[in-house]
């Protein structure tokens, strides 16, 4: 019995010692988490999240850390793969919030995962950044006000009317001189899924606001590989531009088929970086516009972006169709660190108050700030490849107001 008691006491002492050690380590670090699809169907966009967040964390730690009040903290990044599975995303968020006690979470790339994750992060007062423009459905001044259900949730991608507005304006202004006549009629070909439906409703309005006639939106089932029925329908409408919206991988499958069928005198590929265009040696006998989310890595008019992508790829991130999505997260790690420094505290409410008032100088914009619904505003880059292969790019500012 005595021996048992002694063993129990030793075990308790060991546990107490290790708990003390862990607490001591925790005292000098701030834990943040990222939940993203590093495997599965969404891996193309998903892997860019930990890569972008990881680069920012490394830069902050290499620069000495985050000075909060009198104390300097290093940031510890905990990466969790959601395997493109909502149960795993929720389990990972529960783990990060309840077991690891992270101060902030970044992700996920999928809007419905993000909305389910927010149901865990928000009651726990964990600052949550997500680059899903669909968050506009839940973010409003009431929901993000103190005590509101999404007070700690931030949308790190512009509102969709802004992004669609920038994109539509940029596409038409770059393609018009290359086509050589005014562009009047647009047909949108879109994947019929959650994101496609949501984005298209805004993009069509944006095109109409730019004076385009949009006779039809043609929806294709996700994972389509033979686009000929949809392209034939589009051709019959005699468009000036066919807009492939929004899945970059599907778009790259559809374009060669469209060129083969001669569907339109110009095309627009949403979410395809000129870097991919060049790396794959793609060519077209008609002008092709491309847009990036939010800035292109293969060719860019933005000097900050060139430096960022040099570091991003040097850190080992692969060059992909959606590498630029990392910028929807990278800037906000720095932004958050600045907010902690300004607040002089890691208290979530003080941090949110600082985030709401700060103007941060980032890569995507020299003046990043959140509006009263916790949403950012910045420009989107659009590029166009001329038939000869020359690529020109321009940053397009968003419209001030949503079109009616």
């Amino acid at each position, binding site marked *: 019995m005595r021996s048992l008691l002694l063993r129990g006491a030793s075990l308790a002492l060991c546990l107490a010692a290790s708990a003390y050690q862990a607490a001591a380590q925790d005292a000098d670090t701030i834990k943040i988490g990222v939940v993203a699809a590093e*495997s599965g169907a969404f891996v193309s966009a998903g892997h860019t999240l930990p890569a972008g967040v990881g680069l920012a964390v490394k830069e902050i730690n290499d620069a000495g850390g985050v000075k909060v009040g009198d104390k300097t903290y290093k940031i510890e990044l905990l990466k969790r793969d959601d*395997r493109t599975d909502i149960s795993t995303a*929720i*389990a990972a968020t*529960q*783990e990060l919030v*309840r077991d690891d006690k992270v101060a902030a979470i970044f992700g996920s790339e999928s809007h*419905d995962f993000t*909305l389910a994750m927010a149901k865990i992060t928000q009651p726990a007062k964990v600052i949550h950044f997500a680059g899903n423009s669909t968050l506009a459905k839940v973010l409003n001044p009431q929901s993000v006000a103190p005590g509101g259900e999404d007070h700690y949730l931030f949308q790190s991608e512009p509102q969709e009317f802004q992004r669609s507005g920038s994109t539509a304006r940029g596409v038409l202004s770059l393609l018009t001189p290359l086509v050589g006549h005014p562009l009047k009629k647009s047909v949108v070909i879109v994947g019929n899924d*959650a994101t496609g439906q949501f984005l298209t409703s805004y993009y069509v309005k944006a095109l109409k606001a730019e004076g385009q006639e949009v006779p039809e939106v043609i929806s294709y089932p996700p994972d389509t590989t033979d686009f000929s029925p949809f392209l034939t329908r589009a051709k019959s409408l005699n468009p000036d531009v066919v807009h492939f919206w929004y899945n970059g991988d599907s778009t790259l499958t559809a374009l060669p088929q469209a060129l083969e069928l001669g569907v339109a005198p110009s095309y627009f590929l949403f979410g395809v970086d000129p870097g991919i265009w060049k790396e794959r040696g793609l060519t077209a006998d008609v002008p092709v516009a491309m847009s990036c989310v939010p800035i292109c890595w293969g060719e860019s008019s933005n000097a900050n972006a060139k430096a960022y992508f040099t570091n991003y790829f040097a850190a080992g991130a692969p060059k992909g169709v959606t590498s630029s999505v990392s910028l929807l997260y990278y800037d906000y790690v720095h932004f958050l660190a600045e907010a902690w420094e300004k607040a002089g505290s890691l208290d979530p409410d003080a941090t949110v108050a600082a985030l709401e008032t700060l103007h941060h100088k980032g890569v995507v914009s020299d003046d990043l700030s959140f509006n009263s619904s916790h949403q950012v505003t910045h420009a989107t880059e659009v590029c166009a490849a001329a038939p000869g292969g020359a690529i020109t790019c321009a940053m397009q500012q968003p419209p001030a107001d949503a079109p009616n």
Partner: protein
Amino acid sequence: MKASHTMKNRASPFASLLPALLVIGVLVLVPALGPSNRTLSLAISAGINIVALYGLAVLFGQTGILSMGHAALVGVGAYVAAILARDAGIGFWVALPLGSLLAAVAAAIVGVPSLRVSGHHFVIMTFAFGQLLAIVLTNGGDFTGAATGLDLQLPVTWFGRDAGELVPYYFIVVAFVAISAIASWAIINSSYGRTLRAIRENEKLAASLGINVGRHKIGAFVVSGLFAGVSGVLLAYFFRHISPNQFSSFPSIYLALMVMIGGARLLLGPIAGGILVSFLPEMLNLDPVESRILYGVCLIAVILLLPNGLIAGLLQGLQAIVKAAFGSRAETPAAGANNASGARR
């Protein structure tokens, strides 16, 4: 059949329920072991699947009908819960029977035309139903939340106390797993269960005995819909956000996979299948591609080597080992296991 009946006559029907209740008893103790919240969260997801699997087991294991659109019935339950909460302020406990009932109605609506065909054609019909439901939900406008889906805000309460946290919700889910197991057991051991098994073994012979085959097949599909509806309500209140993607064809394939791997004829089968498919990628750190390869290999192995599923295979293996070790004297324990199997057929 004759051997199976003989075995059944020798054992109490409760013997077949006991192993499942023992396993569920162990599952009740899991929170006391201090699992991580990640494990607990995955366990809740697995438990929710297991409830649906019991329904699928009645359909597949007892009636011999495989549905590849079962996730759609789960979706009906989930959307009923979310819409009732949003539009009528109806909470968890009332949503459970209503969600279950409407999923059963959906099953009846699908079942009536679908069960006019059988075998592979029925599988294709249920698969198409799953796809159709996803399309309807995606294009349902504000009513279904379209492709973005619906949020669920109402709390889960238990006698006025919040039961939405992980541990209390885990207990609620385990309780529904237990209820599902008992309900399955009651069906299996009823005259209705025997009728379903007669249809499974030989439809024409069953019809010649005066059994209304079509009506009973639809009935089995409706019963499986009841389980799926409960699973859907549990899922909606756990995820707190639902969207059409969660109920399309791929989740249905996973449900069918779980029930086939675990075994549809034994009460332990759905539990084994649900836990295995939910936790295997986690334990072996497999990415989705590796997981699918593994599931494919498992499925082929189960079909070829263990046609009644993993649990039945394990029991048979155990029986063989005991028999080899103790000779004919070992008849009793092994027969017990066999009895359990036989009683659930």
